[in-house]
């Protein structure tokens, strides 16, 4: 049991299971496989975004501009589709991802080359990217009837009984596991956040690593941009406004340390799922949206408190015999 509770991911799984069980007591249909699959599908975009944010937070940075990036990339994807309905959807997705990557790279360059604090950089670009959407669209909405059917259909196309959106998020999770565990940049994210000074001496370029993390979060935000506008079949200036906070909340609940260096793909995914369950379940058990916000906030604070306890340093071993006993 102790080992179980020590493992952050297991703790979250238990918390999510408890939450789902509680909901099931009041509203049994919530726990049908079909509904749970829907909840997962509904959380897919948050999962993808949280994974990008995790990479950035691991390097002791933060990306507040992810939702704005999503909205801008999504708007460009929608406008492309509206202007040229014949353009293949995969190409539109690539454009959205490339644009997202560029927007992320701008954040990364400002943090790397100009040494501006990440929170300031991304607070600035958040506003700029939202402003750009207005300039591009003239404040107009792109509505469902302006989008081609193929554009709207892709995320909901069923494959082996599940929508492509769900499958896509699973693919992203798998890719992120590979990146974080099996590639040098993935390792560098942890090292840079864990001890930036030591990382420099081991030959890691701290600025470049942060730049890469921002490119990654930007690319995933760009991809999410297309997914969002096609799923909800609308694009306008304010889509996903305030969503950056949900993304960061998912990471924090998932045990990604805001101080950098600690976190995991599994944790970020579970953190996003936890929020997804709350958002989907509370309305069906008749809890008002405002109470939902309060509950989400409480959960975030509890999660941070639990993580802070887990990260607390043990006291220094001073006596020799104690050190020997310590191994």
């Amino acid at each position: 049991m102790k080992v179980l509770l020590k493992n952050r991911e297991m703790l979250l799984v238990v918390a999510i299971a408890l939450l789902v069980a509680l909901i099931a007591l009041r509203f049994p249909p919530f726990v049908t496989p079909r509904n749970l699959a829907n909840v997962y599908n509904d959380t897919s975009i948050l999962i993808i975004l949280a994974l990008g944010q995790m990479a950035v937070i691991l390097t002791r940075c933060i990306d507040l501009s992810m939702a704005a990036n999503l909205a801008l990339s999504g708007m460009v994807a929608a406008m492309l589709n509206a202007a040229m309905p014949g353009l293949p959807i995969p190409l539109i997705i690539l454009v959205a991802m490339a644009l997202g990557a560029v927007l992320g790279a701008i954040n990364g360059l400002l943090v790397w080359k100009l040494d501006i604090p990440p929170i300031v950089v991304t607070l600035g670009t958040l506003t700029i990217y939202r402003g750009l959407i207005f300039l591009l669209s003239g404040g107009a909405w792109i509505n469902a009837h302006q989008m081609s059917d193929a554009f709207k259909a892709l995320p909901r196309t069923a494959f082996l009984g599940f929508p492509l959106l769900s499958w896509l998020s699973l693919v992203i999770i798998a890719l992120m596991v590979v990146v974080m565990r099996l590639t040098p940049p993935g390792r560098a994210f942890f090292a840079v956040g864990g001890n930036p000074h030591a990382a420099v001496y081991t030959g890691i370029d701290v600025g470049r690593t942060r730049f890469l993390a921002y490119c990654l979060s930007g690319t995933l935000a760009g991809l999410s941009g297309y997914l969002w506008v096609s799923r909800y079949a609308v694009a306008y200036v304010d889509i996903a406004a305030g969503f950056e906070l949900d993304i960061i909340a998912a990471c924090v609940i998932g045990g990604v340390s805001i101080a950098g260096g600690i976190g995991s793909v599994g944790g970020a995914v579970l953190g996003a799922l936890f929020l997804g369950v709350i958002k989907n379940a509370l309305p069906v058990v008749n809890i008002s949206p405002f109470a939902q916000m309060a509950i989400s906030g409480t959960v975030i604070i509890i999660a941070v408190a639990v993580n802070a306890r887990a990260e607390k340093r043990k006291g220094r071993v001073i006596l020799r015999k104690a050190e020997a006993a310590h191994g």
Partner: protein
Amino acid sequence: MLQDTTTSRMKPAIALEGISKTFPGVRALSEVSLALYPGSVTALVGENGAGKSTLVKILTGIYQPDEGSIRVDGAETHFPTANAAAKAGVTAIHQETVLFDELSVAENIFLGHAPRTRLGLIDWRRMNADARALLARVGADLDPSIRLRDLGIASKHLVAIARALSIDARVVIMDEPTAALSHKEIHELYELVDRLKADGKAILFISHKFDEIFRIADRYTVFRDGRMVGEGLISETTQDDLVRLMVGRDVGQVFPKQDVAIGEPVLTVSGYRHPTEFEDIHFELRRGEILGFYGLVGAGRSEFMQSLIGITKPSAGAIKLHGEIKVIRSPAEAIAAGIVYVPEERGRQGAIIGLPIFQNVTLPSLSRTSRAGFLRMAEEFALARDYTSRLDLRAASLDQDVGTLSGGNQQKVVIAKWLATRPKVIILDEPTKGIDIGSKAAVHAFMSELAASGLSVIMVSSEIPEIMGMADRVIVMREGRIAGRFERAELTAEKLVRAAAGIEEAA
């Protein structure tokens, strides 16, 4: 020194009796006694981990003792908070001063007890005037209104001492105050200690440096493993006696430098210069050699070493490795070329907490453990196992977080990390700074082994015994230039000091 003979008859300003302190699983202090007398300097000596810091924290009200009593002027008292200790006149000046960089000098001095106007607001005019008067008393010519961050470490110490005077401290604790000071600043600090003594303050002086203990202390107290093992008058003891008390044994071979056959030149540095930090650095480093770099703090040694591994860019100069010209623009290129640098600041250089042991070890060697851009965990484990076992690392599993290891084992992980890069040249910057004598010997033995195994070692050190004991050759730097070169055979402490301080050879 006049007070020496009187202390035994004087009443202590503060006395600790039978103090014990236990942390979960660790007995940090057991039945320790200590008395500090007005107008007297007591040196507290002991290896790292002997319990000195715990004692300081008890004296300043940060920790409460489990047992024992504190008497101030003979009356038993308690320090439940840091504030209570400060009110009783106990103040501490730490190694790295605990002050506020963004506040002015005057604010730092009066933080928490600033003079107020009748309305209860801070009286800035009086605060600045009082600060000026206090700074004059410690012999500091500082403007009270400038921000602390614009001052050097020595000046910060003066501010800390002025703060101590402002709360009418009667007991001043100095925790390794000279550790980060230059030669000249140290002498100014000695003068200040003399002045505080003349003012009747009781001073507790914690230091690893025996020369300064014998220079300024009147009494000594020695701690070992959380116990007080000896005390008395400095005038009645010797350095050897103190060392014996500290370690509880005779220090036989502190510097076990093995004789190693010096081989062919490995690294040749010529014409290295930097616009503001150093110039005209040239030397040769041979296989199996330990080359010492001696100098005062701020002589430009670390700055030069950092340029050697590409952290800063030199404005001119060339490196040859095994006769071949190398251009090194980043630490990654330095590691690839076989030059590694183990920096001075141990907290920063240290292991990366949050990564498991094996990942800490392989971090600088990832290009070797990966294929086509993918890491190979099996090879990482093999590499980490190889080097950690050579260093006798004690850990349950290489997969465990390095943060769960003890400090000594973390240090082994860091060393394994550098050795795993298979360096040709290893630069150790102040490898034993601030560590206890027992660990020092282990580090020195290890350096010797490195040299014997064919590595070339550059050892930057500010400790003369270490330089004299370990180096085959010594380069002395002063103000960014090479001020002297010595072979081991001709080395004397006096020559080193003269070269470092720029004193002409006596005719």
